[in-house]
């Protein structure tokens, strides 16, 4: 079934002639569902961070695009993602985050699964006290696993199961940030927060990847990080973002700082980069901390931004950590009126998607072009299947 068609030809033009995505891509339920498949299910989308299940047996139910999923850390310490339903009657298995001590027991008829997804017991399936039946082959009835990959502590999932391997899709970004390929330590409870925003998830991506708005929306940054200190990051078909050449370490009133990541080259003394990894993960790296923002699309006009801050060492100063989290929260909150204002603007009939600054909106146009290309490919596949 092909969703209501939108004309994306203007989006795919060169930036100086292109328009942004049509209104329907921010307001229409059918297009939202189509994008769920084309832009999220068929790509490597961010679901969670591994730090949400720090210990063996930790399990957390997560709804993603309406799908009930279960994030857990198995007995071998590996992060796994399964459909959170029993293979018997489709009952939700885990309804609250908790630690699995032994097996996952379905609360309905008590079919039991290992943390590796194996179906290990089917009590009374052959009648009272008889736990086998020739019609029930346990080896074929394990939990349905969702393909996943952990990078920079983000748990990326490919729901369709047929995307190219993560390391292949994001080889250039992995190489770009190879110096940061070292242990990341989540700052803990005081370094994670959610922001619920009334906008389509794509507007958060678009706002994050460009620096054009910084002097107007984040005037506090102007004193040391002026627009001309920023540069575009543009990797067509993969990611886009912005970098700064004048990053200054966060410093407390008494001069305290976070430890740096090991062995960074000199360029990172004052550089920092902020990249939108398509579709829905926003990453930032600095010499002394990093962050990941996962955008969870809740509705056409509602997104939950899940923010996680990381450091180079397991122990850091709690006050410094709290102050850094508060600083970033202020910055991200400054963006809310913008993304919500653009969402409201998408209700203007006949809005043509807007025109881009050829000089300043490259990263945003690059994302729109990625969206349009993925939707066109998805529509092509759907048409071929009909």
């Amino acid at each position, binding site marked *: 079934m092909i969703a209501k068609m939108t004309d994306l030809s203007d989006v795919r033009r060169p930036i100086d002639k292109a328009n942004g995505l049509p209104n329907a891509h921010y307001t229409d339920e059918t297009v939202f569902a189509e994008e769920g498949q084309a832009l999220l299910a068929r790509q490597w989308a961010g679901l969670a961070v591994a730090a949400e299940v720090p210990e063996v047996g930790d399990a957390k139910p997560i709804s993603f695009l309406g799908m009930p999923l279960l994030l857990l850390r198995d007995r071998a310490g590996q992060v796994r993602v399964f459909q959170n339903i029993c293979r018997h009657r489709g009952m939700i298995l885990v309804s609250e985050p908790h630690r699995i001590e032994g097996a996952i027991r379905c609360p309905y008829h008590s079919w*039991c699964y290992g943390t590796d997804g194996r179906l290990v*017991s089917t*009590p009374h399936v052959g009648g009272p006290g008889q736990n*086998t039946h020739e019609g029930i082959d346990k080896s074929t009835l394990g939990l349905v696993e969702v393909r996943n990959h952990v990078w920079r502590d983000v748990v990326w999932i490919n729901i369709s199961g047929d995307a190219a391997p993560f390391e292949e899709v994001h080889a250039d970004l992995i190489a770009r940030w190879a110096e940061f390929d070292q242990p990341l330590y989540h700052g803990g409870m005081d370094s994670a927060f959610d922001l619920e925003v009334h906008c389509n998830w794509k507007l958060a991506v678009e706002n994050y990847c460009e620096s054009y708005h910084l002097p107007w929306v984040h005037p506090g940054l102007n004193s040391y990080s002026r627009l001309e200190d920023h540069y575009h990051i543009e990797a067509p078909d993969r990611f886009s973002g912005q970098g700064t050449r004048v990053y200054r370490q966060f410093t407390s009133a008494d001069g305290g700082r976070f430890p740096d990541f090991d062995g960074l080259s000199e360029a990172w003394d004052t550089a920092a980069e902020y990249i939108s990894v398509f579709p829905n993960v926003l990453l930032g790296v600095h010499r002394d901390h990093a962050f990941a923002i996962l955008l969870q699309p809740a509705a056409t006009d509602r997104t939950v931004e899940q923010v996680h801050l990381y450091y180079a060492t397991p122990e850091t100063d709690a006050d410094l950590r709290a102050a850094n989290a508060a600083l970033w929260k202020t910055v991200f909150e400054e963006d809310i009126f913008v993304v919500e204002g653009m969402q409201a603007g998408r209700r203007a009939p006949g809005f043509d998607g807007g025109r881009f600054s050829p000089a300043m909106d490259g990263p945003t146009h690059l994302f729109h072009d990625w969206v349009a290309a993925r939707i066109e490919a998805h529509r092509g596949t759907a048409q071929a299947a009909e």
Partner: protein
Amino acid sequence: MSDLESRLLAAHACGDRAALVTLYSAAAEDAAEDEARYFYLTQAYVYALEDGHPQAPALRARLVAAGRESA
């Protein structure tokens, strides 16, 4: 209601899996017929499995030996 039944209901009510393992095991020992015995043993085994209880392997072994669980 027997004392065992009362204690089982109480254990269910508060989700005390270790107690459920003990009490269903006791019910199995008291059962007069195989069907009831293996019903209770299965109950004990499932809660042991969920709990990561040390008795889980032994309970499983009894069920397997009786042809009530796959090896």
